[in-house]
């Protein structure tokens, strides 16, 4: 495994937690983003993720560096899975270790926000009655579909 990677196989979160652990770490936060069955009243059958892989890995590493610069003593690892994902599958894992817990939470949440801003990965939602690449706000599923 690499500390910042796009993968096609199921994600094993513990690998990333182990990677960031060190003697000076008092806290490790591990975030996993999962495929959720219901979004705004619309039932998702499964998701398909696509990435611009080399750039995505570069941007994930950039987020890791941002965090390690911003919060002293932190260490970060991030992986995002692409391809077809079923309900409850892990799409993304973020591991952050830190001497103190407050930072471990804060830095981890920062990572997911940044991923959603700058990392070239796209999600296609597949519903019972259609599918759509997510990202274009105009085409998001509407509550009245139910």
């Amino acid at each position: 495994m690499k500390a910042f990677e796009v993968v096609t196989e199921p994600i094993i979160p513990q690998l990333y937690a182990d990677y960031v652990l060190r003697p000076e770490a008092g806290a490790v936060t591990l975030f996993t983003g999962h495929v959720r069955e219901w979004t705004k009243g619309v039932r998702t059958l499964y998701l398909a993720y696509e990435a611009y892989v080399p750039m995505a890995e570069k941007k994930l590493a950039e987020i890791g560096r941002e965090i390690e610069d911003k919060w002293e003593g932190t260490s970060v690892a991030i992986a995002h899975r692409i391809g077809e994902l079923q309900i409850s599958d892990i799409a993304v894992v973020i591991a952050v270790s830190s001497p103190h817990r407050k930072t471990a939470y804060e830095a981890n949440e920062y990572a997911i926000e940044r991923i959603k801003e700058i990392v070239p990965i796209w999600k296609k939602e597949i519903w019972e009655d259609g599918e759509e690449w997510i990202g274009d706000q105009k085409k998001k599923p509407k509550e009245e579909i139910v």
Partner: protein
Amino acid sequence: MIELHYFAGIRVLTGIPKESVNFSNQTVEDLWKWADEKYPGIRNSSARIAVNEEYALPSDVIESGDVVAFIPPVSGG
């Protein structure tokens, strides 16, 4: 020649994942104009352009050999 990559909703619009085109010593802004003529609507898609895996400014110059990607609004995580 430069290499163009299209992703997600943008790929649906272009109908192809990538192509090579003659383009050099012109800006990102020029590329937008070219692209919007060939693929009407691409400019209104809120996509960004990345040159060699970095987000580019409209004034950045694209050189022969560069790898350019149209990045629609990302939705990872």
